[in-house]
C-alpha cells in the first residue's frame, strides 16, 4: 500500500511537495481531478494516475489527463458545478491556455470545493517564461493560497477545498518549483470521505453567462471578494512571528529563506516576519497594523513586486510613516542567472538563501560574518551540459532527414517538448517558438509574410493540445508550409503521460485512441504521409514530396520514444560499432547528428556500446558503411 493512501492520520512521511498536494486533496475527499502535465506540476497528476492504476479498488476519484489546460479547467468546472470536489492542475503557462474559462468560471462559481493548482517556475528551469501567476488571482478575483513547503502545501490544499465551498468559488494554490520539488516530513491527517457522484441541478441564472446574467454574476464575484478579504484578515495562513522594530513581509519559499537568514544574522529579537499565505485578497488591515508597528519594512517576494506595491498603497492610504524597501524602483540583472546569480532582489529569477540573507543585512544594516568559501580561481571550468536528445531519439533522425532536404534556408518554427532541443547544433532546426501550438499557426504567418519555405515541427501531444485549430486555420486560409508531427507515442518531456493519440491498451488504460493520420486528413489536409524516421532514404523522399506540394502538407514521423518503448515495448536491438579499418574519418556521423553515444578518438568516430540503442541512423549516414551492428563483428 502506498503511504499516500494511508486511511488514518498521525504519521509523518518524507513527501515531495507535489505528493503532499495529492495527499491534501485526498484528505479533503477530492472526487474528480483533471490536468495537463507540465513541470513543475507534473508529479501531482502523475501520482493521481499511478495510485488509481495500482490501487483501483482503493481510490475513489475520477482522474484524467485532459487534452489541454482549457479543456482540463472546463471539465473540472462541469464537475464542480455538479457538486463534487474537484482538483485541476497545470503549470503557470497552462493558466494562460485556461484563462478564457477561468475568467468567467470566477463569475459562475462552484457548488463543491474546487482547487486550481498553478505551478510557477521562477528561473525557468523547464519553461518558456517565468510569469508571476499571482496576477491571475487579481485578474480573476479568485482567492489564492501560497504554501512555503510540502507540509504546508498539504494543509493548504486540504483547507482550500473548504474555503472554496465556503465562498462558492474556485481557489488557487500557487506554488513555485522549489515547493513542488522539495521533500520534507509531512504529517498525515485522516483520509476524507468522498462524494463520488452528484446530480446537476439546473440554474441557468447562475451558469449561463449571457450578458444579463453576467452583470449580476460580476456583482456576485465582487461580494465574494469582499467576504474573502474578511477571511484573509483572520486566516491562519497570514501569520506574524518574532518581535522588533524591523519588519519583513514575505511569501512562499522566500519565507523559508527569510526565516533561516534571520536566524543566521542573530536578529530574531530585532525582526518581525509577516508570512503571507493567503495572498489574495491580502489581509490589508493586518498588514496596516504590521506597517504601523515597525520603523522599516523589507518585502521579500520572488518575481513581481505585488506585495510591495500593496504595502506602499496601504501605507499611503492610511498615512503610515514607515520606510518600505524591496525591489522597487528596481535594478535589472546584467546577465542571465545561468551566467551569474543576481546579488540583489530583482524581478527576474528565483531567490536563494545567500541572496535573501545579504538583502536583509543590507536593508537593516546588520553584519554577517559569513562562511568561508572555496576559491575557484585556477580550477578548470565545469563542462557546459546543455540538455540533449537521447541516444536513439527518433527526433534526431527526423531532423536529420529534413535538414538534408531543406538545408539551412528553410524557416523552422518549432514547438514545446523534447524536440525543442533541435535548437542546438548540429541540428539547428528551430527558428520560432512562443507557446504550445505556435509552430503551426506561426508557420502560416511566416510563409505568407515572406514567401520563404517553411517547415514546422510539433510533437504529437502538443498537436492534440493546441495544434489542431492552427492546422484547420492553415487549410482554410490556403497557407503554404509543411508541418512535421513528431509522433513518439507519448508526452515524453514531462514524464511519458498518455494523450489522445496514444493507444493505451498496452498500459491497461481504458481510453479511446484518436489516430493522427485520419484526424489530419479529416481536417482537410490533402497531402499527408506517415514516415518511419529511422528509414533515412524513404523519409527523405517523403519529405521532398511534401515540401513540393503547393499548400499545407503534413508528415507524421512515427516512432516510439525509446525511453517509453523500454517500458511498454522493449526491443532487443544490438548496439553499433565503428569498424576502424573502414572508417576514413569523414565525421559525417559526428557533424550531422551528434548522438550522445558517439565520441571521437584518434581521428575516428567511436560508439559507446553502453549508450547506443541500435537505431542505425548513423550507419545509414556513413559514406563508407563503416558503422555496423555489434553482432556482425567477426
Amino acid at each position, binding site marked *: 500500500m502506498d503511504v499516500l493512501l494511508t486511511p488514518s492520520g498521525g504519521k509523518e512521511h518524507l513527501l515531495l511537495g507535489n505528493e503532499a498536494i495529492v495527499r491534501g486533496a485526498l484528505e479533503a475527499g477530492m472526487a474528480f481531478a483533471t490536468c495537463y502535465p507540465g513541470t513543475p506540476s507534473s508529479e501531482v497528476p502523475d501520482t493521481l494516475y499511478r495510485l488509481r492504476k495500482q490501487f483501483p479498488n482503493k481510490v475513489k476519484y475520477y482522474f484524467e489527463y485532459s487534452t489541454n489546460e482549457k479543456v482540463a479547467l472546463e471539465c473540472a468546472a462541469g464537475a464542480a458545478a455538479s457538486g463534487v470536489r474537484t482538483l485541476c492542475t497545470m503549470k503557470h503557462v497552462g493558466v494562460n491556455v485556461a484563462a478564457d474559462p477561468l475568467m468567467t468560471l470566477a463569475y459562475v462559481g462552484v457548488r463543491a470545493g474546487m482547487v486550481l493548482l498553478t505551478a510557477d517556475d521562477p528561473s525557468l528551469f523547464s519553461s518558456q517564461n517565468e510569469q508571476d501567476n499571482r496576477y491571475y488571482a487579481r485578474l480573476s478575483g479568485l482567492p489564492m493560497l501560497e504554501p512555503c513547503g510540502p507540509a504546508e502545501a498539504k494543509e493548504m490544499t486540504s483547507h482550500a477545498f473548504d474555503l472554496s465551498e465556503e465562498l462558492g468559488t474556485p481557489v488557487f494554490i500557487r506554488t513555485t518549483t522549489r515547493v513542488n520539488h522539495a521533500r520534507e516530513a509531512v504529517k498525515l491527517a485522516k483520509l476524507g470521505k468522498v462524494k463520488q457522484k452528484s446530480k446537476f441541478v439546473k440554474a441557468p441564472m447562475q451558469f449561463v453567462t449571457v450578458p444579463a446574467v453576467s452583470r449580476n454574476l460580476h456583482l456576485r464575484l465582487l461580494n465574494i471578494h469582499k467576504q474573502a478579504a474578511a477571511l484573509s484578515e483572520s486566516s491562519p495562513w497570514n501569520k506574524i512571528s518574532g518581535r522588533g522594530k524591523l519588519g519583513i513581509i514575505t511569501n512562499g519559499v522566500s519565507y523559508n529563506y527569510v526565516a533561516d537568514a534571520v536566524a543566521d544574522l542573530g536578529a530574531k529579537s530585532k525582526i518581525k516576519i509577516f508570512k503571507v499565505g493567503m495572498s489574495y485578497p491580502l489581509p490589508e488591515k493586518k498588514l496596516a497594523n504590521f506597517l504601523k508597528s515597525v520603523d522599516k519594512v523589507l518585502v521579500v517576494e520572488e518575481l513581481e513586486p505585488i506585495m510591495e506595491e500593496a504595502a506602499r498603497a496601504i501605507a499611503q492610504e492610511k498615512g503610515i510613516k514607515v520606510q518600505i524597501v524591496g525591489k522597487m524602483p528596481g535594478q535589472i540583472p546584467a546577465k542571465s542567472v545561468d551566467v551569474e546569480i543576481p546579488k540583489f532582489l530583482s524581478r527576474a529569477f528565483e531567490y*536563494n538563501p545567500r541572496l535573501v540573507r545579504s538583502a536583509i543585512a543590507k536593508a537593516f544594516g546588520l553584519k554577517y560574518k559569513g562562511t568561508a568559501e572555496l576559491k575557484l580561481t585556477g580550477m578548470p571550468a565545469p563542462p557546459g*551540459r546543455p*540538455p540533449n536528445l537521447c541516444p536513439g531519439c527518433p527526433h534526431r533522425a527526423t531532423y536529420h532527414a529534413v535538414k538534408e532536404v531543406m538545408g539551412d534556408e528553410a524557416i523552422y518554427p518549432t514547438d514545446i517538448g523534447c524536440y525543442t532541443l533541435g535548437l542546438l547544433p548540429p541540428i539547428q532546426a528551430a527558428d520560432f517558438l512562443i507557446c504550445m501550438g505556435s509552430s503551426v499557426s506561426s508557420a502560416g504567418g511566416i510563409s505568407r509574410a515572406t514567401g520563404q519555405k517553411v517547415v514546422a515541427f510539433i510533437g504529437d501531444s502538443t498537436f492534440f493540445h493546441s495544434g489542431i485549430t492552427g492546422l484547420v486555420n492553415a487549410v482554410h486560409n490556403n497557407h503554404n508550409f509543411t508541418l512535421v508531427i513528431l509522433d513518439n507515442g507519448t508526452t515524453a518531456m514531462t514524464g511519458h503521460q498518455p494523450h489522445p493519440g496514444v493507444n493505451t491498451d498496452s498500459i491497461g488504460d481504458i481510453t479511446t485512441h484518436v489516430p493522427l493520420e485520419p484526424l489530419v486528413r479529416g481536417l482537410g489536409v490533402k497531402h499527408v504521409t506517415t514516415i518511419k524516421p529511422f528509414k533515412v532514404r524513404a523519409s527523405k523522399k517523403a519529405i521532398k514530396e511534401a515540401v513540393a506540394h503547393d499548400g499545407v502538407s503534413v508528415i507524421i514521423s512515427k516512432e516510439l520514444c525509446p525511453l517509453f518503448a523500454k517500458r511498454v515495448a522493449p526491443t532487443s536491438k544490438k548496439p553499433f560499432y565503428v569498424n576502424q579499418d573502414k572508417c576514413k574519418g569523414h565525421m559525417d556521423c559526428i557533424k550531422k547528428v551528434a548522438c550522445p553515444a558517439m565520441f571521437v578518438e584518434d581521428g575516428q568516430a567511436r560508439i559507446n556500446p553502453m549508450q547506443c540503442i541500435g537505431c542505425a541512423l548513423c550507419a545509414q549516414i556513413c559514406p563508407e558503411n563503416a558503422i555496423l551492428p555489434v553482432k556482425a563483428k567477426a
Partner: protein
Amino acid sequence: MSALSWQAVVAGVGGQGVLFVSRALATALEPKVKGILISEVHGMAQRGGAVVSHLKAGAYSGPLVSPGSAEMVLALDPGEAVRNLSYLAAGGWLVVNAPDLGFLSAKGKKALASFGARAVTVPASELAREAGAAKGANVVLLGAAAAAGALPVDPAEVERAITQGQPEARARANRELLALGAGAAEEA
C-alpha cells in the same frame, strides 16, 4: 533526537541516480535528526543535463544550501564536482566518482587542501561496471562516502536505507556495491 545539523549537495548528470542518493541519505539520516529537507531537479534538466540535489538535515526552513555550507559534496561526475565545489564548507568532504583529483588541476588541489577539505575519490563507474551493474555507480560512491566517515551516520544505516523494502536479490546486489565502494575508499 540529537540536534544534528548537516548539509550536503549531491550532483551528477541526468540518469546517474542523483535523486536516489539524496533520498537514500535522507532515509539513513531520518532517525537521527529533527527535520529533513531535500531539493530536487526534475524536467528538462534530466535529459543529459547537470542534476543537483540539496539535502539539509536539522532545524532549517529553506531547502537550498548556501555556498560554503555543505559538509559533503558528493559528485557522480568530476565535472559536476567542479560545478558544485563552491557549496563545500571549510573542512568538508568532497566525494567524487573519479580515480583521483587530477580533474581539479594542481592549483585546484592546493586550494582544496588549504580549505581543509577531505577528499574521497573512487572510480565508481568502473567498479560498478566490473561488478556487472553499470548503473550502480551511485551506490558504490555512497558506500565509499559511508566507509570514509563522510556521513554523520554509520555505514549500517546507509545499508538499511538503500536496501529497505527491496527484494532479497536486489538488496544483496546493492550490499555488494556498497562494499565495493567501502573497499575502494579504504585503499585510497
